[in-house]
């Protein structure tokens, strides 16, 4: 690896001390408390029409400013998904609709001076509902007689196979090679169906937005969002107003994980402010965040593996049924990753593959983006199936992976024919084996005290941004005294992208990290960036930063050349100074900065946009050791070893914490986190009482290392890390539980009850 000075170091986050001392930096801290309080009245029914809605009495509550119903909103449909235009997600929403499609859907918007007034008004709105039959089981949704979106104004902008008259949000089938032919020749076929549930992103700060009118008569939206530019477009669509009338900025964000890649709360206070001209704020409660947002897509994934008796995987056949819920946010795009990322992992001997999917509408909470974005679901299925294959062949599950894993330099037909340009997956496996002492640990050992200790393994890949789509931009500016200002629109949601991008700038400009100030995510002033999602910030925006810095160096050399009366070719940039190559003369950065402000015609500011035609995958191996209690079915995490290839690690601390955080979320997904519904479609897990995320008692010991490859298309050789780290715990833990109990659990989460029932069933 190259000798870096600022990159690849454990630099403290720029905003760290403000965060640890509890400074007021989040939306609800930095916006005034005397604005209108906005709340949404939520549907009590999974599927209903509003026959009558009477707000007259509610409007009489003192302090109530306005109450809006479906009669008051624009009739133009839109999607809340934060994606590049034209969004693949269908335009299937109105701000408020006469048809209610899930328990939690918006019935009315109430704005008032105090929370108490608003709460009182909410109770006084009289609604007559016509309760309709809902579609609650996603397996029966396609071509169901009950339609979730029968309306004619429903629209799909992209050809994703959507058909609202069939409850289809998307459908596709792709095939490479002779799948059935190769399958027929295989010695062994493993075929199973896996079921992953909706999971809540459960970031600690719930959804929240503040809106006000600025002095220019424009709507200013300040909120906790990962996607300032997409919010601007979505609001313009929803409110049916010009984009030029909207400005979106974000303060610190209390976690996102993809949840804030969707416009969950922005629309409601924005509508209130646009209508009343008054400032407004909407803060979703935890209950609303759990019942009226966009969690992970529930998926059912059928995997067929065809292999030789030596464990060579020759053919893969994957079909995914994805539940997008009542609206199509991210429905057509998450599903693709369930096949692409899982199939491509086993590229080495693959002769043929097939990948088909249906994404269906149902009358449950709409799904959306969540870290891993479909890959997580697909990798649980594929990795479990490969572990089942290893078990069937009585082979070491590590060896079967070593035989079949994708290698550096290979072309991956199942991954847009991209070449696997940087891949240390093999080294990740070797290192994980060493750290874990895999070869010397039995798959399971009965400890004789009612507990069984066992191990499991899985690997994963993700991507680095959306190839050919994502745009990252950076503006770098030289200021007086020679410090630099880096302007970005990627949103730091706690991951540390402000810091990481500043590290790259400092590396490039050969200056101290402290010489870079970062500001951003303002749709008025920041250069365009698709936003912080799809594991794109380090890879895509990072490259933009690198390129911008290189161009700024050229500009500074030009000024120095004029000052020293020589050509730029005779100059060498050395961070704090620019010198003549022969060393005879030099000029300091401060002099150049000073010159730039007096009689200068050379701009000392550069903006560069970057987009990548490829999306090089990061890779990872996870190995887990657990203890299963035979009496209670409880699974205890003992040790988790994770080795990650994210190319060059830009910030060693932040990458490690990202990995540990992702593992913890994956552990939650594997063991506890669940969204279940009663018979009429109401969510049981509507609080942290019922929806249990892991505590520090639950995660065991996590050991993280990196096996870096060098990705030549990435900044300083970097790939992404944000999403991949959530993918291995579910299959690895399911594998370990099988090794302990002899039962394959193909549905998540694998709760103690399920483990216990499995043990009992096996015994009988």
């Amino acid at each position, binding site marked *: 690896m190259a000798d870096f000075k600022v990159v690849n170091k454990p630099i403290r986050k720029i905003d760290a001390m403000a965060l640890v001392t*509890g*400074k007021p930096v989040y939306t609800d801290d930095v916006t005034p408390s005397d604005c209108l309080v906005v709340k949404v009245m939520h549907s009590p029914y999974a599927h209903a029409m509003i026959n009558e809605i009477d707000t007259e009495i509610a409007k009489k509550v003192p302090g109530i400013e306005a109450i809006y119903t479906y009669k008051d909103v624009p009739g133009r449909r839109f999607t809340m998904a934060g994606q590049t235009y034209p969004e693949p997600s269908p335009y299937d929403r109105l701000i408020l609709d006469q048809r209610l499609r899930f328990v939690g859907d918006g019935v009315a918007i109430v704005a008032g001076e105090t929370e108490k007034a608003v709460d009182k008004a909410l109770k006084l709105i009289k609604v007559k509902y016509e309760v309709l039959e809902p579609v609650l089981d996603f397996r029966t949704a396609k071509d169901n007689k009950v339609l979730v979106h029968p309306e004619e104004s429903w629209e799909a902008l992209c050809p994703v196979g959507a058909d609202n008259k069939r409850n289809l949000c998307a459908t596709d089938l792709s095939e490479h090679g002779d799948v059935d032919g190769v399958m027929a020749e295989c010695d062994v076929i493993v075929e199973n169906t896996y079921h992953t549930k909706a999971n809540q992103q*459960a970031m*600690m700060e719930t959804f929240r937005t503040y809106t006000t009118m600025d002095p220019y008569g424009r709507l200013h939206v300040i909120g906790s969002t990962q996607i300032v530019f997409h919010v601007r477009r979505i609001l313009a669509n929803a409110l049916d107003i010009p984009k030029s009338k909207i400005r979106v900025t974000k303060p610190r964000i209390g976690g996102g*994980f993809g949840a804030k890649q969707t416009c969950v709360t922005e629309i409601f206070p924005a509508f209130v402010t646009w209508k009343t001209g008054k400032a407004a704020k909407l803060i979703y409660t935890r209950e609303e965040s759990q019942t009226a947002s966009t969690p992970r897509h529930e998926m059912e994934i059928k995997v067929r593996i065809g292999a030789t008796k030596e464990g060579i995987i020759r053919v893969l056949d994957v079909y995914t049924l994805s539940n997008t819920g009542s609206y199509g946010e991210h429905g057509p795009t998450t599903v693709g990753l369930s096949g692409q990322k899982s199939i491509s992992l086993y590229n080495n001997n693959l002769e043929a593959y097939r990948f088909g999917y249906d994404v269906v509408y149902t009358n449950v909470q709409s799904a959306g983006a969540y870290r891993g974005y479909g890959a997580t679901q697909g990798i649980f299925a594929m990795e479990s199936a490969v572990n089942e294959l290893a078990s069937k062949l009585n082979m070491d599950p590590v060896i079967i992976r070593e035989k079949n894993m994708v290698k550096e330099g290979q072309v991956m037909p199942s991954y847009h024919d991209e070449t696997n340009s940087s891949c240390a997956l093999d080294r990740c496996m070797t290192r994980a084996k060493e750290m874990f002492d895999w070869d010397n640990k039995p798959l399971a050992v009965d400890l004789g005290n009612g507990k069984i200790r066992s191990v499991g393994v899985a690997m994963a890949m993700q991507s680095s941004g959306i190839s050919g789509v994502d745009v990252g931009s950076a503006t770098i500016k030289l200021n007086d005294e020679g410090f630099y200002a880096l302007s970005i629109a990627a949103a730091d949601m706690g991951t540390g992208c402000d810091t990481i991008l500043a590290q790259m700038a400092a590396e490039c400009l050969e200056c101290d990290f402290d010489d870079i100030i970062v500001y951003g995510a303002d749709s008025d002033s920041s250069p365009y960036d698709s936003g912080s999602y799809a594991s794109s910030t380090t890879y895509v925006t990072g490259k933009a930063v690198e390129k911008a810095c290189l161009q700024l160096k050229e500009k500074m050399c030009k000024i120095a050349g004029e000052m020293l009366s020589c050509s730029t070719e005779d100059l060498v940039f050395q961070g704090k100074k620019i010198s003549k190559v022969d060393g005879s003369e030099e000029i300091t950065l401060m002099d150049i900065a000073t010159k730039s402000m007096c009689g200068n015609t050379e701009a000392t500011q550069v903006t560069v946009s970057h987009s990548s035609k490829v999306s090089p995958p990061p890779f990872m191996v996870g190995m887990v050791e657990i203890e299963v209690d035979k009496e209670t079915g409880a699974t205890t995490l003992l040790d988790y070893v994770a080795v990650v290839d994210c190319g060059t690690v830009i910030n060693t601390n932040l990458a490690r*914490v990202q990995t*540990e*955080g992702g593992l913890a979320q994956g552990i939650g997904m594997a063991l506890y986190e669940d969204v279940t519904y009663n018979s009429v479609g109401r969510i049981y897990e509507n609080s942290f009482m019922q929806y249990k995320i892991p505590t*520090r008692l639950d995660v065991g010991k996590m050991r993280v290392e990196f096996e870096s490859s060098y990705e030549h298309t990435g900044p300083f050789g970097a790939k992404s890390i944000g999403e991949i780290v959530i993918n291995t715990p579910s299959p690895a833990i399911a594998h370990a539980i099988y090794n302990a109990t002899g039962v394959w659990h193909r549905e998540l989460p694998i709760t103690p009850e399920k483990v216990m029932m499995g043990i009992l069933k096996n015994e009988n």
Partner: protein
Amino acid sequence: MQIKLWLNGKMVTEDVAADMLLIDFLRAHGCFSVKRGCETANCGLCTVFVEDKPVLSCSMLVARVDGKKITTLEGLQEEAEDFGAFIADQGAEQCGFCNPGLIMNAIAMFRENPNPTDEEIIQYLAGNLCRCSGYEGQLRGIKAFLSFKKEKGGVC
């Protein structure tokens, strides 16, 4: 109803509604470090001290702290900086939203038990949820802080 209390060392006398929660009172008085994460006493983000004992301010009426001494992170800035720097040096603060609650409880722990074992740390802070860090970095930060304090020979 009128109440009187000491907020970060300053006396506050005020008329409050009988159903006002302590968290809302504190935020209304500019203590923005106090965060609401769950409303159900599950996440620990709203932890403050009442008479130097950590409590969940989302689950306590302000009327109940009449006449008492309330401390938020705003009143413990020096300790927050000292200890917080060790969390920051692990990159474990991440989004930062859960940090004030965690740091309040960690300070309470250091006062109660200046030399906790790993197990005791994990147990004491079990009620403080974090969705970003995976907890390991926080543990590393706490241990690094404790070692630093030990080397200096002082008690936290």
